[in-house]
């Protein structure tokens, strides 16, 4: 029965990708990674400039997986309670309290989008940290649960004024950091500018088939998937070697141009990070119609699951994206399997 479930759900996942690719063009890799994150039940940090289609992408996914979708904009004056409740004076002239974005959809909340998360204060990051880790929230003397919630956040790496860097503990809660870049293909670029169907996002998203997945079935299916897709001892050893290489890249002869390798890495990938890597790798193997994880499955998610977890010396933080890319490529090239 479980094998049939895996096969059926894979068809749904492929249908999901096809539908999303119809409305968000030239983003096959981010779409595959977000699909992987959804089936791995991991939160996602999107990185990219403004206007590249991050919100459209998330709205499209939300429509396909169903459930509640909530969104909040990160601002410097945003406080944690703004996520929980909203106060206003009603028509009767009395003060009223209504649920904030987190509580609005109750347990049916499936996607919570935090736009420009690095503009919010650390207090807000702190609240989000708990919600992401435990999927619970205490408010009004009551414990609220969000069992199906996935947090998608985005941050603008270009602008640094009035922003607060997300602490490494909060970054580590995200399963993936996915870069969204404008496609380089001329035909796609032209289509994005001149094709009128891309001008109205609401109408565009409405063209996608809704509820391809059942958001409230994803947790159970994910557990089944993780149990079914296996990893051989050789692969486990390979994953451990990759982990060690993120901690001590010099031991594996990894070099990054213009960087003192002895000073670069303050902390490599965390155990939670490696666990998330393997969860994502299992999903990738399943999407590729395999029962076992291959090194190639790990490679497919290695950059997006590990890069944001590495802690570099402050002197190299300004070049984080570029250095992390080169470092992780060097690690994949240096570690052999078998």
């Amino acid at each position, binding site marked *: 029965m479980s094998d049939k479930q895996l096969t059926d759900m894979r068809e749904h996942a492929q249908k999901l990708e096809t539908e999303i690719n119809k409305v968000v063009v030239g983003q096959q890799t981010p779409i595959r990674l977000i699909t992987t994150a959804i089936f791995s039940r991991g939160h996602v940090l999107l990185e990219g400039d403004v206007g590249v289609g991050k919100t459209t992408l998330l709205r499209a996914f939300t429509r396909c997986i169903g459930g509640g979708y909530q969104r909040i904009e990160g601002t410097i004056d945003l406080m944690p309670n703004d996520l929980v409740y909203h106060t206003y004076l009603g028509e009767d002239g009395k003060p009223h309290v209504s649920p904030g974005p987190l509580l609005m959809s109750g347990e049916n909340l499936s996607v919570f989008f935090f736009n420009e998360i690095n503009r919010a204060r650390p207090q807000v990051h702190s609240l989000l940290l708990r919600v992401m880790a435990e999927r619970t929230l205490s408010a009004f003397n009551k414990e609220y649960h969000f069992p199906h919630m996935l947090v998608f956040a985005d941050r603008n790496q270009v602008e640094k004024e009035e922003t607060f860097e997300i602490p490494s503990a909060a970054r580590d809660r995200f399963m993936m950091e996915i870069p969204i870049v404008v496609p380089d293909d001329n035909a796609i670029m032209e289509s994005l500018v001149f094709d009128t169907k891309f001008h109205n996002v609401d109408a565009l998203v409405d063209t996608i088939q809704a509820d391809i997945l059942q958001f409230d079935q994803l947790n159970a299916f994910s557990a089944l998937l993780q149990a079914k897709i296996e990893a051989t001892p*050789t692969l486990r050893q390979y994953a451990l070697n990759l982990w060690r290489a993120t901690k001590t890249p010099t031991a594996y002869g990894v070099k990054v141009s213009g960087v003192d390798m002895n000073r670069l890495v303050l902390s490599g990938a965390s155990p939670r990070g490696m666990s998330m890597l393997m969860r994502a790798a299992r999903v990738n193997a399943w999407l590729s119609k395999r029962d076992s994880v*291959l090194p190639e499955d790990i490679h497919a998610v290695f950059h997006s699951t590990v890069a944001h977890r590495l802690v570099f010396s402050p002197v190299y933080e300004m070049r984080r994206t570029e250095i992390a890319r080169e470092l992780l490529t060097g690690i994949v090239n240096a570690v052999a399997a078998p």
Partner: protein
Amino acid sequence: MNCLMNKLITPIRIGLLSLLLMLSTSFVATANDEPSPEIPEGIVKLSKVDPARNVGFLMGDILDRTITLEVKKPYKLIETTLPIVGYEHRYKGQVSGIELRKISHSTKENRDTTTYVIQIAYQVFTTAPVVKPAILPAEVVKFEGPATEEAKDGLVQYKIPEFYFRISPMAVFGAVKIEDDMSPLRQPILLQPYPEKQKLVACLVVLGLSLLGLLYILGSRAWLPLMGRPFAQASRQLRKLSAKDPEQLKTALSSLHKAINTTAKYSVFSDNMAVFLAHAPSFKSIESELNEFFALSHQVFFDTQSTAIHDKNTLAWLKKFCKQCRDCERGLKPAKQKKA
């Protein structure tokens, strides 16, 4: 007063002493340089010991003479008239090439006579393409005796007879064409440096071997550029493997993975094989075999559901695949093989 007198007398004394010194010096110089009458006969009795032979002398040879002069008293030898070391005899203004190397003498007083034994050593500094006559010169020594009519100052001289000999050439017969080489200024023939040449050759051999060793080490321990490359090494390892042991299939696959990674200088997987083929285009001809190899590797190392695929054919296929890769790394066209 005395003090004043001393001051006046001292310069006078110095003047007189200087005059006496000048007179004695001029006397010695006169005694040495100017010819004097011959010593009367019967005064000197000569006996000499000359070199045992008078032929076969080469450049650098030393000839010793011992001259014994028994002189009747009151004649006395003037020692300053003896020849000095470094003296070179000249004949018609030209140096003879015979140089006085050492001289010593001893004196023995008898009742009526005095015996002088003079040891003289000459060294030959000349040669010629043919046998050359030479002479140990007749040395003239002077004696001081009673004044006579002939020798009013009492100085007489005695001529020690010369010694004739032959200097042999150093050239080998036939090596020198004498008609073309008659110059007396010709430099002496050099000795042949055979031992030095042998040492030099030995050193060059050692240097050559060292350079070969260095080349071998720098060439990744391969004598030829195409030897000892990764797939050649893997091929040797695979040849030793037997199909009987299932674990040896893994060993074979690992060896081939290692060879591919070493060739590429990074870890090659199926997802970056296109990059490998772009950098090593000689492997493009076996792209399908490479894909097959990675599929096999996945099955063996990473597929938990895979059934036992170990058999003789698989290992044989891997050995042939390794040879194909070896051909590719040598720039040869590999032979195609059937699917595993």
